[in-house]
């Protein structure tokens, strides 16, 4: 079942085309929406909430048409805007209770849900103080809480890590992951930082200039290009350990390249067609073969094996490739 579906969705403003025939199908889970500033992310969110009409095409959220059933969609969807949206002289509790009631929760439920939600996002004693004195991290938590307080089926988070320091960023990303893993709420999260989405998303949708560049699962993005990084020591018999390892691996028919220092990168070979029942099993079988080969070769050469780790290509690289493909 898809959570968000768009069909050649187009949004034209007098001077720019913000969305250009965008067709995506987003399922449950955490989905990262990646794009540079002005790529059309915020426009897409506005249309999904039924707040702006599309120039062309259709958008469906939770099975409802965004153009006609905006009210019904907004009852089941939470939205965390990118910008500041908190009045400074109100306490977090007071504010989130108000927002819960604006979503239709009766007074007592609104109070209970507010207390629950603020605890889940990690706001404790400070929730009774006016929000003007909050740090950016605390403000982001309140913004997230108001999007979750009415127990939506889907939350749209616009740049939730904006302005946070690295520790705050990590905590926010952990929270977002929990929204799906523990709360069972689907998430659409936008960012222009690819590295963070890679860590928390099940799927990534990349848009640029209002056009769809790629829509793929994270596994698809990274595993296809997985390689193995091996770091070895030198020994008396082999003063240049890396060189020896490279040669020995080449002799076994594995493609390997020298990295920085004593590191060797080994590309995973194409899985044999008959290797296993499914692509994942085939991938694993291949990895086992490579791991065994490295172990044997290093043992034969008498080198010290410092570490051996699966290295995934960053989405950033894939994204860059994607851009070039489209541009060229």
């Amino acid at each position: 079942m898809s959570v968000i579906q768009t069909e050649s969705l187009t949004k034209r403003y007098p001077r720019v085309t913000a969305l250009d025939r965008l067709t995506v199908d987003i399922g449950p889970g955490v989905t990262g929406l990646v794009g540079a500033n002005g790529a059309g992310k915020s426009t897409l969110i506005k249309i999904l909430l039924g707040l702006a009409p599309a120039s062309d095409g259709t958008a469906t959220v939770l099975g409802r048409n965004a153009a006609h059933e905006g009210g019904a969609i907004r009852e089941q969807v939470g939205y965390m805007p990118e910008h500041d949206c908190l009045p400074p002289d109100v306490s977090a509790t007071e504010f989130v209770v108000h927002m819960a009631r604006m979503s239709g929760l009766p007074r007592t439920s609104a109070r209970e849900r507010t207390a629950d939600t603020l605890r889940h996002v990690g706001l404790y004693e400070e929730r009774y103080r006016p929000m003007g004195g909050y740090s950016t991290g605390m403000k982001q938590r309140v913004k997230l809480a108001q999007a979750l307080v009415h127990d939506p089926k889907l939350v749209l988070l616009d740049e939730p890590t904006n302005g946070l320091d690295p520790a705050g960023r990590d905590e926010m990303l952990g929270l977002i992951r929990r929204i799906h893993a523990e709360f069972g709420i689907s998430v659409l999260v936008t960012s222009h930082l690819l590295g963070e989405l890679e860590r928390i998303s099940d799927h990534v949708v990349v848009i640029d200039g209002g056009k769809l560049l790629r829509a793929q699962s994270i596994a698809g993005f990274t595993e296809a290009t997985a390689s193995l990084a091996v770091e070895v020591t030198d020994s008396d018999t082999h003063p240049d350990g890396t060189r020896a390892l490279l040669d020995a691996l080449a002799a076994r028919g594995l493609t390997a390249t020298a990295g920085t220092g004593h590191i060797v990168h080994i590309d995973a070979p194409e899985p044999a067609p008959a290797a296993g029942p499914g692509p994942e099993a085939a991938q694993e079988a291949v990895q086992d073969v490579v791991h065994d080969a490295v172990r044997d070769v290093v043992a034969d050469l008498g080198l010290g094996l410092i570490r051996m780790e699966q290295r995934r290509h960053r989405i950033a690289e894939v994204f860059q490739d994607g851009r070039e493909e489209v541009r060229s």
Partner: protein
Amino acid sequence: MTAPPAPDARIHDIGYRRYEGERLGAMYARCSLFVHSLRGAYGLGRSARSKMLPIGLFVIMCAPAVVMVAVVMTTGRDELPIEYTAYGVFMQPIFGLYLALAAPQMVSLDLRYKTIPLYFSRPIERGDYVIAKFASLTASLFLFVGIPLLISYVGSLLAKLDFADQTTAFARGLVATAVFAVLHAAIGLLIASMTPRRGFGVAAIISVLTIPYFAVISLMVVADEQGSPDAVGWIGLFSPGSLLEGFQAKFLGGELEFPGDQMLTNAAGAAYVVVIAAIIALCYFLLTRRYRKAG
């Protein structure tokens, strides 16, 4: 050696709880916004600093009523020094200050702190927001004038003034107050919704309330002295304060304090009603149009 913790001696994380209860929809949300804004207009649910001015003004607003009651009780007069219908106009400066404070509090802050998108990402529509805020400001202004009236009424009854007289006068006073509140809410809200800056809103509302009023009064004096007392009533159409003064005098039996002390003609009276209604309708229309884009 420490004893192992008792199995039930720790706080359990009960985890995420789903909300299975009812969702009350747009009408309920509108009411919630109404109540929230009304509380906000008196600083309730906000910081102590935000409470100070509205509550202070409200106390000042009530003071004459209390004094009036005290005077009537001690001197044994048989009527209140200020009529119910005229109370709002009499306290115009305080009322104007309160409006200039409450209207920006109600809408400019939502614009300034960009809270509006949070409202519109919920079931209510843009029109609902305008209705709720308008109703809320009207109610807060009505209470601002209505409660001193109530104090006077209760006090006058305690002082054993004539019950029937006082009750009719009080009822008329409430009608005048209602019209007073709706008209001022419409004007104040429209001005406040134009700017996210609270200071601008305050200044603009005070100007719109006072400058035309004093201009109108000066023109009236001139017209009266130049021997065209009929024109005095018509000039009164051009400021909110004089409009309401004329309205209450003509239709609710209040006193007219215009220069020349001549009662409005019937035609002028009708024009007063039409202009008041037109201003309210126009402001409301412009507000709706303003919020089609805002946020």
